[in-house]
């Protein structure tokens, strides 16, 4: 016989009400948990993808689109820039490193990126098989691409124009790549890219033989030689009628702010659910108090101190809250995992439910706090049970 045992016996006596309260709280906890897990993972992933890239230079258009297409590879590029302009920029003394990107084709929904070895090195890529490309029309697969398509070193692949996936769209049937390497999973954007030489992309698009002054690339990822360049470089680039500069840090911060409104609304919804659960627990315990007046009086008669009755009621609220929190966390992690596998099928960065964030302790704490708060008033009323009256009138 323990206090928790008695609380459980009371909860078992009204299983439907108990289950309902647990479920309500669990839904609130799950909502907040999913938001926490998803936003934190997406944020850290985007930060990692944008790390070390001070400036992106591409065709005129929306700076957001430029960053989304050239850094995160989740949007189409607005256009191309002349190779000569890019080369001039790369030679600027304020530029420490410049990585060219030539975009345009995809392989089964995964983007083919024409670039230099610097791009792979930038994300610290390691190979699990083969090596990097040494000449045009050789390709290296990101880990997720290799896993999803099931091809490896030695296979041939044909790019499709745009991001069309496997559809019948305009395939570049006449030119095929040879897979020469597969990258290890890096947790960066590289996982879902097919890397090749810039020249491959030119070749596929039939400009391979032309002199260099007519060639184009899509974007240039720039790392400054000194932080001072941030003050002058973007303005200098934007002055060029064919170029546009965008800061990944600034644009992703802007993106987070825009998404942030939606996240806040959803979070508020989750918190409202939790508070509604608290109200429901409060009502259930207040009702239970009315039904249990005589039980409480008898317990006092048998020697229970007032404090024990208080603990009994509060424990019931906390037990409900603990069950709700546990169920909610399980639901939240499962839902995040499900969203993650759905996103992986959409060729987006993976999201995992198998991750524990320290912030989740706050969610657990909040849920227990809700249970405790809801039980407080009924608990205090239980303490004030008038024993002699209840026993005499019963």
């Amino acid at each position, binding site marked *: 016989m323990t206090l928790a045992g008695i609380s459980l*016996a009371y909860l078992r006596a009204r299983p439907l009400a108990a289950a309902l309260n647990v479920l309500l709280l669990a839904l609130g906890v799950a909502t907040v948990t999913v938001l926490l897990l998803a936003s934190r993972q997406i944020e850290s992933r985007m930060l990692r993808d944008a790390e070390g890239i001070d400036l992106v230079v591409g065709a005129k258009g929306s700076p957001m689109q430029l960053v989304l297409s050239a850094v995160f590879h989740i949007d189409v590029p607005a256009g191309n820039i002349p190779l000569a302009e890019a080369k001039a920029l790369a030679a600027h003394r304020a530029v420490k490193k410049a990585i060219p990107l030539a975009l345009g084709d995809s392989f089964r929904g995964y983007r083919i990126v024409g670039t230099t070895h610097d791009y792979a090195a930038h994300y610290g890529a390691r190979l699990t098989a083969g090596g990097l490309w040494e000449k045009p029309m050789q390709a290296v697969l990101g880990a997720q691409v290799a896993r999803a398509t099931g091809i490896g070193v030695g296979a041939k692949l044909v790019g499709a124009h745009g991001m069309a996936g496997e559809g019948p769209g305009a395939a570049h049937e006449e030119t095929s790549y040879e897979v020469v390497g597969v990258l290890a999973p890096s947790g960066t954007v590289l996982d879902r890219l097919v890397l090749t030489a810039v020249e491959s992309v030119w070749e596929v698009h039939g400009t391979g033989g032309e002199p260099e002054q007519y060639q184009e690339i899509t974007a240039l990822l720039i790392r400054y030689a000194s932080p001072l360049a941030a003050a002058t470089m973007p303005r200098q680039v934007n002055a060029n009628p064919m170029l546009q500069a965008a800061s990944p840090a600034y644009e992703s911060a802007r993106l987070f702010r825009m998404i942030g409104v939606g996240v806040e609304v959803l979070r508020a919804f989750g918190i409202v659910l939790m508070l509604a659960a608290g109200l429901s627990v409060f009502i259930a315990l207040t009702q239970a108090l009315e039904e249990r007046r005589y039980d409480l009086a008898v*317990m006092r008669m048998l*020697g229970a101190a*007032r404090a024990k009755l208080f603990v009994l009621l509060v424990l019931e609220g906390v037990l409900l809250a603990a069950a709700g929190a546990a169920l909610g966390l399980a639901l939240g992690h499962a839902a995040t995992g499900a969203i993650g596998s759905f996103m992986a099928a959409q060729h987006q960065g993976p999201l995992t439910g198998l991750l524990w964030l320290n912030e989740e302790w706050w969610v657990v704490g909040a849920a227990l706090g809700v249970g405790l708060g809801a039980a407080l008033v009924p608990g205090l009323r239980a303490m004030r049970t008038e024993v002699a009256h209840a026993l005499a009138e019963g």
Partner: protein
Amino acid sequence: MLSLKGVRKRYGAADALVLERFEAAAGEHWLVLGPSGSGKTTLLHLIAGLLAPSEGEIVVAGQPLAGLAGAALDRWRGRTVGIVPQKLHLVPSLTVRQNLALAPWLAGLPQEPDRAGQLLAELGLADKASARPHELSHGEAQRVAVARAVMNRPKVLLADEPTSNLDDAACAATLELLAAQARACGATLVIATHDRRARERFDRQLRLGR
């Protein structure tokens, strides 16, 4: 064992109980008689420390009740006084065995697993240990309430109108049960009743009311 002197309990301006003197020695069996409203239940609650007197002095088992309060009084009551309330008040969410286990646990005494089983067997309730109170007949429920009251081997056993709504045979059996259980613990027994049938069984009688 029991000593009440100049006790008066008022509710507002009205006297619920006025008792000049009542003394009961250890192991004695007493009837408290009187019409309803004469303060029988109030007297039991005063002895149990569930109510405090407006005036006067109450000493139970050597303990002046005025010297106890709060959790200490609750603890003392749980260990010293066994009560069979008129409406029995078994806890409906718990089994018979759990209802009995509640008594030592709430009084802060160690559990004696055999005690509940022995009492239930003695009272012919061995097969009801896992039953819930609503599955019991009134007679069975009353025996469980008596068993609960004597679980902690109290020094004072109080029963409030234990024979109301009982036929003659059940009435006699219930009074015999209370007397037997009080004897078994060496407890002073105080039964509050307005039932005339009880008078023949007990010599010591306290009459309340006018």
